[in-house]
């Protein structure tokens, strides 16, 4: 079987699972549903391994069209698969995390009335995500992009009887629409200028347009590639939750925890990172867009991480951590360290899924109480969860030799030596971010698993380790969270050619990873050398601060809040993004809508068109009715005048 055929199977297996569990969930039963969906996702995962083997060991890549979807004028939109190293890696990540989350859900969703529906949704999500990563043109990419958004909406609102879940799902959907608006404009710009949206054509022809300008506002010449790159990045900002479109991600935690792990940490939110990496031939042509990406990403890495420090909900802490890590990845893309961004995406997928599933395990034990203030000392009751969560936390905090260390360290170093405008600011952000990351995740860890037991007596009686289906995925995920970094760091970042091969394109003047490669002397040396680097000590300081405030002096919290002064309320309100949106966009659009209603609807449409046409007819008929006198001789006279008129016309004309 060629890798093209394999890919068709990989993509369609979860779809089949979704259809079976979704439409035939009743006859299949709960057990049948999860067996079918897990079996098919497992098949996808195994086939993905085969594809990965073919791509890396035999060097096969493929770009084949399956069939024509839309034929419109001279434009042809195909369904097709573009298989290269980047796709193969994404296939592995998506199917691997999806498989584990499927298994985990058996335990987490136990007893939920929507059991079959849940499995149908997550299989559907897997299908959509696979469509997104295997697309060979932007149209199909957009299809996958929108589908994951839709399933994300369905899953955040999975418990649709909860008010907050409905609000959260709507917010996610609407904020993503804002991003998609930019994204679809970007695709349109590509189609308009290059005349094709097939990756192969676009990437081959993009350099021809490097110096093309266009003037959207008269008098301002903008580089075409910058406009395209920034528009596409706006789409990525929505999906990958970058400032200021990040506001939906914390809210999305209203969905079931497995979903937070799969969609809102490991896969869907990385779609933006994937897309920018895929479009690297376009981004490399626009220094403006690269600077913007660096600044937006780095700001997110620091400032959204800071918000995580003041959250009490364990899932929200991890959610803000996701926002911060997405910021790191984005900043890496900005300095053209695409491989580092994708590398962090891979390690992050493992350890963040681990952290989320660990948090989910805690939530099961706590009877769906997610408040960190009610936890503490859980280490005794759930050792496996505690241990795996610790591994995830160490990996996230970039402590060598855990996976997160290699990827995050590469990003920080790449930003440090980058020459593009904004890199200096970005370096400060990501460096402080290293401290903040360690602080918030260890704060959550210490509050949940160590210290005094603050839960209610009733909950305490039932505290126990979660069942095997829950802890097994934790243990499986813990393995790559430890070793994945050390294994991949060399081949992925510094080898020539790297694991990603020709899938990413970096111009020589931006090639920061190429410079770093000269100093790289193996994974072990990198881990040992970390002791001499700044980010390592920042992370250690973060852990120590967390330990001091949460365990050593638990009472110091009030004092710190006092010292922080106005900063604490700012963080507590998440920099007021929600308030700003409420003030400007929600009230603004309400005001605008009211204006349209009063003027446009009531005055123009109702008064002028609807009632106006009625009044006009009444007025005309009121005037003309006087012609109808009812006297025979008037009518006769009219007839004769008409007749004479016609006669004159006939004779003269």
């Amino acid at each position, binding site marked *: 079987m060629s890798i093209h055929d394999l890919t068709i199977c990989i993509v369609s297996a979860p779809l089949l699972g979704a259809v079976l569990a979704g439409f035939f969930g009743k006859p299949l039963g709960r057990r049948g549903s999860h067996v079918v969906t897990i079996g098919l996702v497992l098949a996808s995962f195994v086939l993905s391994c085969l594809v990965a083997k073919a791509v890396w060991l035999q060097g096969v890549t493929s770009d084949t069209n399956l069939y024509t979807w839309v034929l419109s004028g001279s434009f042809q939109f195909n369904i097709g698969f573009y298989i290269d190293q980047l796709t193969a890696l994404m296939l592995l990540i998506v199917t691997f995390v999806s498989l584990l989350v499927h298994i985990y859900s058996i335990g987490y969703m136990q007893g939920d009335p929507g059991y079959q529906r849940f499995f149908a949704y997550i299989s559907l999500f897997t299908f959509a995500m696979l469509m997104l990563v295997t697309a060979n043109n932007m149209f199909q990419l957009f299809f996958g992009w929108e589908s994951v958004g839709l399933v994300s909406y369905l899953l955040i609102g999975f418990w649709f009887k909860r008010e907050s879940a409905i609000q959260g799902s709507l917010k996610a959907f609407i904020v993503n629409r804002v991003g998609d608006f930019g994204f679809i404009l970007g695709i349109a710009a590509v189609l308009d200028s290059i005349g094709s949206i097939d990756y192969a054509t676009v990437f081959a022809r993009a350099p021809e347009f490097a110096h093309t300008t266009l003037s959207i506002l008269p008098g301002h010449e903008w580089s075409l590639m910058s406009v395209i790159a920034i528009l596409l990045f706006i789409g990525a900002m929505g999906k990958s939750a970058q400032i200021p479109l990040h506001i939906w991600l914390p809210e999305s935690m209203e969905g079931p925890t497995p979903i937070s792990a799969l969609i809102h940490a490991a896969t869907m939110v990385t779609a933006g990172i994937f897309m920018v990496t895929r479009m690297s031939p376009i981004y490399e042509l626009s220094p403006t867009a690269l600077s913007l990406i660096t600044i937006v990403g780095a700001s997110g890495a620091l400032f959204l991480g800071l918000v995580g420090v003041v959250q009490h909900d364990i899932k929200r802490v991890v959610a803000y951590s996701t926002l911060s890590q997405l910021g790191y990845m984005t900043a890496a893309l900005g300095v053209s360290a695409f491989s580092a961004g994708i590398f962090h995406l891979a390690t992050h997928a493992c350890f963040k899924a681990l952290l989320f599933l660990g948090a989910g395990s805690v939530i099961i034990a706590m009877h769906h109480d997610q408040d960190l203030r009610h936890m503490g000392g859980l280490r005794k009751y759930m050792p496996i969860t505690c241990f795996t969560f610790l591994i995830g936390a160490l990996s996230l905090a970039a402590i060598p030799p855990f996976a997160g260390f290699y990827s995050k360290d590469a990003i920080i170093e790449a930003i440090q030596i980058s020459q593009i405008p904004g890199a200096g600011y970005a370096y400060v952000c990501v460096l402080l971010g290293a401290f903040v990351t360690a602080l918030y995740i260890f704060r959550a860890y210490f509050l949940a698993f160590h210290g005094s037991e603050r839960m209610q007596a009733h909950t305490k009686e039932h505290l126990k380790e979660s069942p095997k289906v829950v802890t097994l995925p934790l243990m499986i995920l813990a393995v790559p969270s430890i070793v994945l970094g050390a294994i991949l760091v060399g081949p992925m970042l510094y080898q020539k050619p790297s694991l990603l091969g020709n899938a990413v394109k970096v111009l020589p003047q931006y090639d920061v990873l190429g410079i770093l490669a000269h100093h790289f002397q193996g994974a072990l040396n990198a881990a040992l050398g970390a002791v001499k680097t700044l980010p390592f000590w920042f992370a250690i300081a973060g852990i120590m601060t967390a330990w001091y405030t949460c365990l050593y002096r638990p009472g110091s919290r009030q004092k710190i809040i006092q010292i922080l002064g106005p900063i604490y309320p700012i963080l507590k309100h998440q920099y007021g993004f929600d308030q700003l949106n409420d003030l400007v966009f929600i009230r603004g659009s309400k005001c605008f809508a009211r204006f349209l209603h009063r003027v446009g609807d009531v005055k123009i449409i109702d008064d002028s068109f609807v009632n106006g046409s009625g009044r006009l007819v009444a007025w005309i008929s009121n005037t003309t009715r006087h012609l*109808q006198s009812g006297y025979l*001789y008037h009518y006769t006279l009219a007839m*004769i005048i008409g007749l004479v008129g016609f006669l004159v016309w006939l004779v003269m004309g």
Partner: protein
Amino acid sequence: MLLLSDYLILSAALFTLSVTGIVINRNNLILLLMCIELMLLAVNTNFIAFSHFQGNIVGEIFVFFILTVAAAEAAIGLAILIVLYRNKKSIRVDELNTLKG
């Protein structure tokens, strides 16, 4: 010797007379019917004149048809007039404005 134009002038005069009668008559519906008859006769005169001067018999045949129809029309017109009088107790033209808009 009478010319064709003499006949045409006569019929035009008759026609104009009858039209004027219809328009300015405000009193009697019978007068109106008579004017219509006169109008038809003016037309008939035209037919006969053309038929004679062009040596074509079709015009004269046409006149017979018109006379027949005119007779029937007069009968119907008078019948309607009688019914109208029963209902309105009047045949004054300026009182018949039920169709006023």
